[in-house]
């Protein structure tokens, strides 16, 4: 099968594998700074993939979107997160993951599941797109898993942003990019979201004196856990 593919198509498949690998790295990485760096690498890989696809498809607007991805996902957002960790004095923090081997096994199961879901699309499209859809779905689900297994607000946000990376990967590789207006809108939303997240970290820190979201438990239905509120 592989010999039938052209060189750029094979390169796109390689990129897909690398992006998936960074997703696993994000799941397993416990040091905060290293997590941010892996996330930046994922953004860079995404930008590189976009350039590759742009070269194959000769869609000039993809170059702009590659540039936006590079600046935003690989540089600006990691930089903002970096600044925030410095400001909060938690650069050296190491997070404990409960049952790390179980989490990675679950992640592998999610990848298999994504391929299972993408299988019926087979007849519709070429090998590259089928793989791309399966892998981007896997990246989305792994980001989801990361948000579930982590307790730190910042790593949850990185999980969220890596979900968005998966989405952009799907948009770029399977469809040669969404129309420009949409991409710009999405990029803008991502930027605003990061800034908002930054504000939130400060506030969560102020109000519960920690970034451990497990301690956000005031709002609930049952009588015992909820504190009386005026």
């Amino acid at each position, binding site marked *: 099968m592989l010999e039938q593919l052209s060189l750029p198509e094979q390169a796109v498949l390689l990129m897909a594998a690398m992006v998936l690998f960074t997703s696993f790295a994000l799941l397993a990485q416990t040091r905060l700074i290293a997590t941010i760096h892996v996330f930046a690498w994922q953004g860079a890989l995404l930008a590189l993939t976009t350039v590759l696809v742009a070269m194959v498809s000769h869609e000039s607007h993809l170059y702009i979107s590659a540039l936006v991805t590079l600046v935003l996902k690989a540089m600006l957002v990691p930089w903002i997160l970096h600044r925030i960790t410095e400001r909060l004095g938690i650069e050296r923090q190491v997070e404990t993951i409960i049952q790390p081997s179980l989490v990675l096994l679950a992640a592998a199961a999610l990848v298999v599941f994504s391929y299972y*879901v993408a299988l*019926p*699309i087979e007849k*519709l499209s070429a090998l590259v*797109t089928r793989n791309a*859809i399966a892998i*981007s*779905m896997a990246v*989305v689900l792994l980001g*989801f898993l990361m*948000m579930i297994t982590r307790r730190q*607000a910042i790593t*949850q946000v990185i999980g*969220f942003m890596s*979900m*968005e990376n*998966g*989405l952009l990967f*799907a*948009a770029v590789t*399977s*469809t*040669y*990019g*969404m*129309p420009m*207006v*949409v991409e710009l*809108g*999405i990029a*803008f*939303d991502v930027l*605003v*979201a990061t800034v*908002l*997240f930054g504000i*939130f970290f400060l*506030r*969560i820190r102020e*109000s*519960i004196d920690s970034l451990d*979201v497990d301690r*956000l*438990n*005031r*709002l609930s*239905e*049952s*009588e015992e856990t*909820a504190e*009386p*509120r*005026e």
Partner: protein
Amino acid sequence: MTIQSLILLLPLLGMAALAIIGHRPAAGWINILFCAATFAASLALVFQVLDHGSLFALHQLLYVDAVNVYLIVLTAFIALTTSLFSRPYMAHEVSQGRLSDARLRLYHAMYQGFMLAMLAALSSNNLGILWVAVEGATLTTVLLVSVYRTPEAVEAAWKYFILCGVGIALALFGTVLVYFAAAKFMPTAGDALSWTELHHRAALLDPVVLSIAFVFLLVGYGTKVGLVPMHQWLPDAHSEGPTPMSAILSGLLLNVALYTLVRFKMLVDGSLANGSHHNPALAGHMMIGFGIITFLTAALLIHRQRDIKRMYSYSSIEHMGLMTFAFGVGGPLATFAALVHMMTHSLTKSAIFITVGHASHIAASQRMDKIRGLIRTQPAVGWGLLIATAAICGFPPFGVFTSEFLVLSAAMKSWPWLTVPLVIGLVVGFAGLFRHLHPMVYGAAPENQQAVRVNMLPVFLHLLLVLWIGLSIPAFLAAWFDQATHMISGSALL
């Protein structure tokens, strides 16, 4: 300059203006002014659409037909009446020292920003821009929820942010899949996200991809509708944000999210209709399932609430479940019922939240065991709350009764055995609301409980409209709903 772009331009200007002067005493009036102008523009749009049919604007990026123009007017109207209530309410909050100048500015700017996002979502023809607008609505409301900066407000806003963020990301994945399925058949790339073009060629879209996409879209946009089990953010956001925001969240945002789902359901239905080995009503069945589970869960959870705004937000979830169910059943009768219910629920629920805002000012608390004897202290608020709650429970003279009755008849027609859980859910929800309401309005008032300055005009206006719909749906409104029903379900009811 078309009216469609004007409807988006006005809130944008309002947002810019209020970001600068939103802390002045006159800001409440300016907010009302912009809302009134938007409402006037939306009325003008109605006449255009009713005269000329569907309209495009801005290189086909904006599209207005009978379905969304009705929601645009409803949105603009409720935003206007809520802004009338918001002015004295926020003045009271400022005098209590709960808000600083900067936060008041933020509140007013975000009020208009929220309007902008919702109107953009409603009038957009491009599925990508629709997504961007719904995400924008999320971001603005996060700021509104956290405006008080209490630990509870920060927690509520965080939950809202994370849950809706994940939801909306899944919805984007669904949108990408739809684009993927469409890109092959469309002459230009831009058309592959244009809803009108997609709807036109829905039969060509691959049914497998569209089914997978709809799962993601239902979970994604369903988070914003408040479907169980993705509903956790909704009661928190309602209870911790300022009350005017609760009114527009319940009355408007949930509708916009449901509207989005319905638009996608139309595409999926069109695509699945021609496949022989697929279940043609897959989208509808999923919506029925989610709808009925949401409806029953929320009805039960109403009983457990202690915070008055949380209780009514569960009632919103209950009603959104009912509407999702009705849209899922499909067919002219159920669709017509769902459209009417959207309107009656929005009007009644925003009236309730406005009254609740006054009630919690009187009692200086949102806890229901602290709110007592409203009718004795301030009859307008007490009776307002009682009547509005009776209306939302579906008591006969009000419009909610009409729409719920229509939903039940539609269910009886196509899914007879599902009427049993529906009726049980309605009774359970009714019991839950009245059980808590009774001591709040009738009980003896605590010592030195003072009446506050209230503006009950929006409440009685909304309730009168709901009563009018309940007694007799005006002919033009019925014709309008029928036109929308025809567009969604393919055949008219009347």
